């Protein structure tokens, strides 16, 4: 199918735009010449298109068009990175705009902007062989349609969008209207497994959950379509959806060893803790979120020539420090570096450790390079989360643990990271509750990471602590809820300092994604006593020098919010 020029209206009629732009005819000529040069085919890594999306993800609003476009993006980006999406500033992944600029600046990508879905179809519909119709009244049909989109090169449309795609020469490949009406999600996905699972990749799977109900955000779907993944939002909640859990277990058991579960759990069915516990039990890795955009584009750019990760180390691996009689604080952010604090005001004013999504070395290297490039001397990168992806180590099968951690060690070497962050919320309740590691798990980490400076643990506060040779394991003593008034945060920290009266006291603080560093600077000023904020590597070295904390592991008597699946 040949692309036709986009049906753009008169420039002067479009609000907010130049009134003196080229005429429609001239624009069409320029556009045709642009295509005729073959620039996109010849230099796929140097020319691409960009779309700027709004924040309307309502099922009854902007979702159908975005879903059509995200399936188109996945197909268009199969052979070359051709379509990138910039999201609004208030989108959860705030890096799409900075990364867009990074591609232009460091990779020399020349972007042409696409304004409308119609224009996008004009340019890219040739990458699709047809379309599949989903039914917004049956939410799971969206995921079945996305699976078909990847397998059969289809665009995902609603009934109302059929004329639009047929105008571009696309024919129906499948129509899910009516097929699943009245069925449970367990029944729908069981049918989809029978029909499609064997043809899907078994290297990864798409947990296309997240927002559920009137708003859905399947922004990561381009990646799943490109990679021919099986899409689902099966529940990990054994109390509410045992049939779905059983089907999810079957799928997870049939994935290849070390496979990745992309996406995120459904906010309408279960919890992050339940799903991460579930996949960890199979030695698999979670890579969130459901709305992580542009992976189909990002995965096709490597590091720029000559680039090498150089972390801002403050101490050598074999350095020996001596702690003084004071309170040492260290701040860490772990909610994926692409979210939140990084782009908030004040970064660089305090030493800060950032848990890097290490798997991005494989499918989003440019994003990692962007973070490293824009790091200040106070930004220090650490590995995690728990391994070569997000996992709960208390549930990783013992025979899978060494290989997974070897993979993590390899990525930490590439990223020049000396600290491993661990998180096991399987028994926790969100950011409160039991986030501790069993002694067996701690033993495994010490065996698997002989060369790290140390380990940190938790999300909310935890009480797993240890020191073996020169490697401490310290849990968070405090979690800063971004909604908590700053005066109360200062009082909380002061109270911890008062209660932990022996000096030195090592106070590790987890900073939730949406905090900003400026507010932390003000909090630190309000603390009583001899306090010092130090980089995490210094913090661990000091903690190794004088052990004023207890050794502790998960106690079987400690309360557990969720006991797992066995």
């Amino acid at each position, binding site marked *: 199918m040949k692309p036709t020029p986009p049906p753009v209206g008169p420039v002067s009629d479009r609000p907010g735009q130049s009134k003196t732009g080229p005429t429609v005819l001239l624009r069409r000529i320029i556009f045709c010449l642009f295509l005729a040069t073959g620039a996109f085919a010849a230099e796929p890594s140097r020319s691409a298109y960009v779309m700027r999306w709004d924040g309307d993800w309502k099922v009854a609003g902007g979702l159908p068009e975005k879903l059509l476009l995200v399936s188109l993006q996945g197909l268009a980006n199969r052979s070359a990175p051709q379509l990138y999406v910039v999201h609004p500033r208030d989108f959860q992944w705030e890096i799409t705009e900075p990364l867009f600029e990074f591609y232009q600046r460091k990779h020399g990508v020349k972007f042409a902007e696409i304004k409308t879905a119609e224009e996008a179809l004009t340019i890219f519909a040739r990458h699709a062989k047809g379309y599949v119709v989903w039914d917004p009244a049956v939410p799971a049909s969206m995921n079945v349609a996305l699976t078909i989109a990847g397998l059969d090169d289809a665009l995902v449309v609603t009934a109302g969008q059929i004329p639009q795609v047929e105008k571009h020469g696309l024919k129906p490949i499948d129509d899910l209207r009516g097929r699943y009406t009245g069925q449970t999600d367990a029944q729908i996905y069981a049918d989809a497994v029978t029909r499609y699972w064997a043809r899907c990749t078994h290297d990864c799977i798409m947990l296309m959950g997240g927002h559920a109900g009137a708003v859905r955000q399947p922004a990561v779907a381009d990646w799943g379509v490109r990679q021919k993944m099986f899409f689902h939002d099966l529940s990990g909640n054994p109390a509410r959806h045992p049939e779905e859990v059983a089907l999810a277990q079957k799928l997870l058991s049939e994935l290849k060893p070390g496979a990745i579960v992309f996406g995120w759990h459904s906010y309408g069915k279960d919890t992050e803790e339940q799903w991460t516990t579930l996949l960890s039990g199979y030695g698999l890795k979670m890579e969130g979120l459901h709305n992580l955009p542009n992976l189909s584009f990002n995965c096709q750019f490597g590091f720029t020539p000559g680039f090498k990760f150089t972390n801002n180390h403050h101490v050598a691996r074999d350095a020996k420090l001596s702690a003084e009689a004071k309170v040492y604080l260290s701040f860490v952010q772990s909610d994926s570096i692409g979210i939140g604090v990084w782009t908030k005001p004040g970064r660089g004013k305090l030493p800060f450790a950032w848990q890097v999504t290490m798997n991005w070395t494989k499918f989003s290297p440019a994003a990692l390079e962007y973070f490293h490039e824009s790091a200040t001397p106070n930004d220090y990168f650490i590995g995690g989360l728990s391994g070569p992806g997000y996992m709960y180590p208390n549930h990783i099968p013992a025979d899978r643990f060494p290989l997974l951690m070897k993979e993590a060690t390899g990525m930490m070497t590439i990223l020049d990271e000396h600290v491993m962050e661990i998180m096991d919320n399987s028994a926790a*309740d*969100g*950011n*409160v*509750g039991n986030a501790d590691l069993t002694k067996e798990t701690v033993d495994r980490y010490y065996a698997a990471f002989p060369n790290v400076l140390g380990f940190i643990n938790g999300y*909310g*506060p*935890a*009480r797993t*602590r240890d020191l073996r040779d020169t490697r401490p394991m310290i*849990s*968070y*003593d*405090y*979690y*800063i*809820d971004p*909604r*908590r*008034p700053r*005066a*109360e945060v200062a*009082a*909380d920290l*002061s*109270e*911890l300092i*008062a*209660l*932990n*009266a*022996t000096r030195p*006291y*090592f106070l590790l603080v987890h900073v939730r994604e949406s905090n900003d560093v400026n507010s932390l600077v003000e909090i630190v000023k309000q603390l*009583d006593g001899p306090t010092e904020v130090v980089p995490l590597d210094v913090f661990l070295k000091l903690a190794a020098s004088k052990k*004023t*904390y*207890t050794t502790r592991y998960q*106690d079987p*008597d400690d309360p557990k*919010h969720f006991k797992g699946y066995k």
Partner: protein
Amino acid sequence: MTRIRRLLIPLLLLLSLAAFAATSPFEGRWHLDRTRSTALDGWHEWDLVIGIAGSRVSLQHDMKWGRTNFSATNTVDTAAPSDAPAFFRVEQRHMALYPAKGGTTAVRAAWLDAGRTLRVEADTPIEISQGHATMRLYYEYRLIEGDNTLVLIELHSTRPQPLVYRFTRVTETSK
């Protein structure tokens, strides 16, 4: 006569206490007004259910966090100090402070201000990252004029500022 007075005075005292207990406006369910209180941390809802039986006052805490419901009751005695094996403190749950396993909390309570204020003092053992510590707690439950508002002022020996919680009475119509 002296003997009668000796018997009569404690009896009157007991009767007055009983009468107070029977009619105390403290009793009932109180709901935290979050907009007028110190921010809770790790809890979304807090109902306080107060019951009085003689010198014993039960303080039932009905807590909510997401879909999790938790309830714990501290019973204090205004007539004599007591030891509570499982004293419940509405903690800031994002701090690594935990009730010490097997710990016992020494509790003292008294009515003040003609029965308009209940004072509770507790020395509670806490597990901290450095081992164990004792937190001295001081609570005043104050009834506000009109008896539909209860203010709880909480002081910690280790915290530089008070926690102030304001509750409103839960009635049949306010449910």
